[in-house]
C-alpha cells in the first residue's frame, strides 16, 4: 500500500512538474511575444541610428529591407534614415487578456472560425515555426485580433493625397474622418468583452466620412465585420450627391476606393476575412520598418489644427514616401494569396511587426505576379503623439504611402489618430447614422 501511495505521489508530482513546465513555457512565449526586446534590440552590422541609407550605400541594408524598397533606394526614389529601436508595448489589458485566454483556442480543421470560443487577446502568442504548415494562418489571426486601434479610435482629420509620381504633382486631396470600433473581444474600454446588444455578432466596424472635396463631400462608408469569419463583410456607401445609402457588392472592396490607389481591402494592411486568403509564414527577420516617435519627426504645418498638431510630411519620388525614421524590428514575413481566382491581385507579402502585430510594410503583386504596389504604414509610438494617446498602448497608424509602381501613381495619408472611445460611440456604426448625418 505504501508503495502504491509512493507511486501515486510520484505521478502527481511529475504531472504537476509537467504542468508547471508547460505553464512556464506558455508564460515565456507570451513574454517573448509582447516583450521581444527584453534582452535587447536587434543588432545588425552597419545599421546604426543616424545612418542614412542612400543609393550609394544601400547594399549595407540588403538584409534589413525588402528587395522592392532596396530597388527604390537604388533608383534614387527615397533615402531612409535609421533611428534607434524602441519598445512599443501594447496596452496591458490586451496582454492580460492574452494570458487569461491562452491555449483556449485552436485553428479550425479548414477555413473558418477559431475553435474553442475566442474571447480576447493574442490568440497564438507562441513563436511561429517554419515546419508548421498553418503558422501563417496563426499569424493572420494574431493580426486580425490584434490591438491595432485598441477597442476603438478615430482618425480625424485624415488627409489623402493622390499624386502623380512622374510629374510630382498632387492631383487631388481628400479630407476624411475614420472611426473604428470593436464590438467584441474588447479588453480596455467598458463594456467588456462585448458591446451588447449585438444581435448579428459583429466583431468590428469601420465608419468613414468624407469632408472634402465638394464632389465627394458627405460620402460615407460603413463596414461591418462579423465574428463569424465565414460570413462576408457587409458594406454600405452613402453618396452625398444622392442622399442615399447603397449597399455595396463585395466586389467593390477590391476596387479602387474613391479613385485612390487603395482598395478597401488594403485598409490597415489587410482588411478582410482570414478565410479569404491562403496564408504562408516565410520566416522571421530583423528589418527596418517605419516605427518612430511622431513628435520627433520632420512634420509639416500645411494643415492647421487648433491644438497645434502637425502631420507627418512626405518626401522622395512623387512625394510618396512618409518622411519618417525607420528602426530595426523583429519581423514575421507572411504571404497571403487570395482564394478567389477573380481577385485583382495574386499575393501580398506582409512584413508583420512581431511586437505589435501591425502591418507596416506590404508588397502587393498583380494577377500576373508582377510587383504592383508598395504599401507603407508608419507606426507612431503613443507616448510621443497627442497627449490623449499617451499610455494607450496603441501602435498608432500615423502615415501611409501606397505606390502603384506600374501606373507611377501613389496615394499618401496623413493621420491625426486619436484613441478616445467618446469619438467612436456605437451609434456611429449603423446605417441610419449615415442617413442622419449625411446632409
Amino acid at each position, binding site marked *: 500500500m505504501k508503495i502504491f501511495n509512493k507511486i501515486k505521489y510520484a505521478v502527481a508530482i511529475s504531472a504537476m512538474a509537467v504542468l508547471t513546465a508547460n505553464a512556464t513555457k506558455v508564460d515565456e512565449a507570451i513574454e517573448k511575444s509582447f516583450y521581444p526586446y527584453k534582452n535587447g534590440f536587434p543588432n545588425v552590422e552597419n545599421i546604426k541610428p543616424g545612418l542614412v541609407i542612400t543609393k550609394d550605400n544601400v547594399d549595407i541594408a540588403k538584409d534589413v529591407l525588402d528587395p522592392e524598397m532596396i530597388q527604390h533606394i537604388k533608383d534614387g526614389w527615397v533615402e531612409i534614415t535609421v533611428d534607434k529601436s524602441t519598445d512599443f508595448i501594447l496596452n496591458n489589458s490586451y496582454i492580460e487578456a492574452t494570458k487569461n485566454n491562452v491555449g483556449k483556442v485552436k485553428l479550425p480543421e479548414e477555413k473558418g472560425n477559431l475553435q474553442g470560443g475566442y474571447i480576447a487577446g493574442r490568440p497564438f502568442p507562441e513563436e511561429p515555426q517554419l515546419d508548421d504548415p498553418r503558422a501563417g494562418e496563426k499569424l493572420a489571426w494574431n493580426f486580425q485580433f490584434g490591438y491595432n486601434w485598441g477597442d476603438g479610435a478615430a482618425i480625424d482629420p485624415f488627409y489623402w493625397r493622390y499624386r502623380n509620381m512622374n510629374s510630382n504633382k498632387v492631383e487631388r486631396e481628400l479630407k476624411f474622418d475614420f472611426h473604428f470600433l470593436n464590438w467584441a473581444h474588447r479588453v480596455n474600454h467598458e463594456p467588456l468583452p462585448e458591446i451588447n446588444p449585438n444581435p448579428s455578432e459583429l466583431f468590428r466596424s469601420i465608419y468613414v466620412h468624407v469632408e472634402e472635396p465638394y464632389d465627394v463631400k458627405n460620402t460615407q462608408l460603413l463596414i461591418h465585420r462579423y465574428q463569424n469569419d465565414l460570413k462576408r463583410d457587409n458594406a454600405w456607401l452613402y453618396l452625398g450627391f444622392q*442622399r442615399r445609402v447603397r449597399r455595396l457588392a463585395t466586389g467593390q472592396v477590391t476596387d479602387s476606393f474613391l479613385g485612390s490607389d487603395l482598395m478597401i481591402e488594403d485598409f490597415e494592411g489587410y482588411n478582410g476575412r482570414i478565410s479569404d486568403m491562403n496564408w504562408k509564414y516565410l520566416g522571421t527577420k530583423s528589418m527596418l520598418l517605419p516605427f518612430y516617435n511622431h513628435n520627433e519627426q520632420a512634420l509639416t504645418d500645411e494643415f492647421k489644427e487648433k491644438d497645434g498638431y502637425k502631420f507627418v510630411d512626405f518626401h522622395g519620388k512623387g512625394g510618396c514616401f512618409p518622411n519618417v525614421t525607420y528602426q530595426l524590428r523583429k519581423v514575421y514575413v507572411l504571404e497571403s494569396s487570395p482564394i478567389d481566382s477573380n481577385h485583382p491581385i495574386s499575393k501580398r507579402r506582409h512584413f508583420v511587426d512581431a511586437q505589435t502585430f501591425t502591418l507596416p510594410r506590404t508588397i502587393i503583386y498583380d494577377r500576373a505576379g508582377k510587383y504592383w504596389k508598395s504599401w507603407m504604414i508608419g507606426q507612431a509610438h503613443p507616448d510621443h503623439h497627442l497627449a490623449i494617446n499617451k499610455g494607450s498602448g496603441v501602435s498608432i497608424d500615423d502615415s501611409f504611402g501606397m505606390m502603384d509602381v506600374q501606373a507611377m501613381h501613389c496615394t499618401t495619408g496623413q493621420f491625426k489618430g486619436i484613441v478616445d472611445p467618446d469619438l467612436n460611440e456605437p451609434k456611429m456604426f449603423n446605417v441610419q447614422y449615415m442617413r442622419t448625418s449625411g446632409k
Partner: protein
Amino acid sequence: MKVRLHYFKNISVFKKKTALLGGALLLASTSSYANEPADISGFIENATSVREDRGLSKFRNTLQLEYSKNIGNFAGFNDVSINGTFRASYDGVYDLNDDEFGAKAGRAINIEDQNFGSVPHGQGLGSTNPDSPYFGAPLPPGHVLGVNITNNPNSGMIVLGENLHATNGGVAFGVPVRPCDVDSRGCINGYMDKTENELRFSEFNDNLDFIRELYMDASMDLDSGTLFNLKVGKQQIVWGRTDLFRVLDIINPVDFSRNNIYDELEDIRIPLWSIAAEWQYGANETFDDINLQLVWVFDEFRPNNLGQGGEPNAILDAGSFFRGFNNCWENGCTVANFAGGAAATDFGPGQIGIRHANVPSWSVDNTSYGFKIEGVYQDIGFSVNAFSYLSQLPSLRGGIEATNSFTGEKDVWPYLIAFDIEFPRINMFGGSLDFYSESIDSAFRVESAYTTGEEFANTLKPRLFSESDVFRWVLGVDKNIFIRSINANKAFLVSFQTFGQHILDHELEQSIGSDVGLPSFGFVGMPDWKDNYISTLLFKGWWLNDSLSPQILTAYDWRAKSGVIAPSIDWIKGNFRFTLTANIKFGDGAKEFSDCRTCNPFNPFTATPFHTAEGGASFDAGLGGFEPLGRFRAGPIGMANKESELQVTFRYSF
C-alpha cells in the same frame, strides 16, 4: 434689386413667416454659441444644352453655396447645427434663343382641318372672320361659337404637340409660348404663370427658392440610450433605396422643368419647410438597427414643377396642354378636326378648357405627414413607410359649369372637356428592402408602395376622371464586373432597375366606334396603362484614379416602346469638373387615345349616330388622336421623343 423687391412684395404671409424662421436660424448660427467656424462650400456651373431642331435649349449658370455651422449644445440638444443651401441661377436660353423659348417665341399658326387642309387660328367653324372658309356656315341659332380674337390673336403660338407629331386627324389647338408677363394667355394663376424673369432666374420666385435649404439639425441622447434627432426647416427628406424612380421618395415634389427626368433628384427635389423627428434605437435583441421617423411637412402645398408652355423642359408636354387649354377657356380657341371629326371649330370662352387650378392654400388640413420605420434585420435593410400628402401631380376634374356652345346655356355637362385642376389627397403605404446575395455577388434594392386617392383621366366617366388605388414597385440590382481587357484594376458598375406600376381600378374598353371598325376610333377609358414597366440600365467605368468616368445610361418604357440612351463622360481635374452627355431618344414617341371629340356633351348638336341610337346619351364613342390623352400612353420618355440633346456642363467647386 428690382427683381428681389418684386418677389418679396408678392410672397404670402406664410412664406414671410417661414422666411423669418429661416432668418432666425441663420441668426442662431452667428450667436455666441457659435464658436466653430462655418463650413462654406459650393460651386459655380454652366450647363449648356443643344436640342435637335430647336437649337440652344439651356444656358444655365448657377452659383450654389452650402453652409453648415455647429453651434454646440443648445436646449438639451447636442451637436446642434444650422445648415443651408443657397442657389441662384440664370438661364440665358430665354435671351440667346428667345425666338424658340423666350419673348419672341411662337408665330401665327394654322390648325388642321379635314375639309380645308388647315385654317388659321380663329378662322374655324363659328368664326365671324370673312376670311374663314367657314364664314357663313349654317349653325344653330343662339350658338356662342367663336374665338375672342382680340384677346387671343394669332401670334406667339405653336400648335399643341407640333414638336413631337403632326396633328394627323386628331385634335390640336394653339398654345401661347411666351413668358407670362409677355403674353398672359393660358397662364394659370398660381400654378403655371412664370414671367420671363422667373424663367431666367428660376430660384427668385414667390417661394424664395434661392433658399434651397435652411434647417436646424440637433441630436439628444435620451436616458433610454436612444438617440433622438430633430431636423427643422426647409429641407429635403429622402426616403427609399432606388435611383431615378420615386416610389417612396415622395415627400418633396420635384422640379422637372430643370432637365426633365434626367437631373439628379438631389438637384431637382423642391425642398419644403418641414420637421423630421427620428428616434434611433440602435440594436436590440432582434434588430441590428431600428429607427422611427415622424415627418410633418408644414409648408404651403407645392406641386411638381412640370414646366409651363414655352419652357424647354416640360414633362409630358403637360404644360403646353394646360396652357393651350386654359387659353381655350379664357378666350376660346380653334380646335382641329373637331365638329364631325373634321372641321376645325372655334369654341368660345367658357365652353371647353381648363378653368383654373385650385392650388390648396395653407391650412393644417393641407399639410403632409407620415412615418418611417427603418432598420437592419440580420443582413437585410428594410423600411416601412406611410405618408399622407396632397398629390404633387394635377388631376383634371370635369363636371364644372360651362357654356353650351350651341345654345349659350350654362350648366354642368357630362363628358364635357371642361376642367378644374385639383390636387387630391393621397395616402401611401410602402416599404423597401436591400440585401446582398453572395452567390451572385450582387446587391439588390426593392421598393414598393400602395397608394389610395390618385386620380386618372377616364373617358368612361361623366366627369372624365376616376380614382384608383395604385401599386408601384422597383427592383434594382447592382453588380460590379471586371472587364480586364479594358480596365485591369477597376470593376465596372452595372446597375439595372425595373419600375412597375399597376392601376388596380383600371378601366379600358373598346369603343363603340372601334367595334364597328371605324378608323381612328379606338379604346376608351383610362389612357394610362393598367400595367407598365420602365427599365433602366447603367454601365459605368472609372479610369485615371476615378477622374475620368464614362457611362452609358439607358431607360426604356416597355408599353410606350420609347427609350433613351445617354452616353456621357465625366472628367474631374482639381476643382474643375466637365461632363459631356448625349441624350438620345428613340422609339415610338407619341401615342394615340380617345380625345372625347365624340363624347356628345351638347346633345343633340354633338351627337354621332351612336349617341342618337342611345337616345342622345353622352358617352365616349372613341374617336381619338395623339392629343391630349395620348401623352399618358407615351409617358415622359415617349413625349420627349424629339428632344434629343447634347449637354455640356462645366463646374468649378470650392
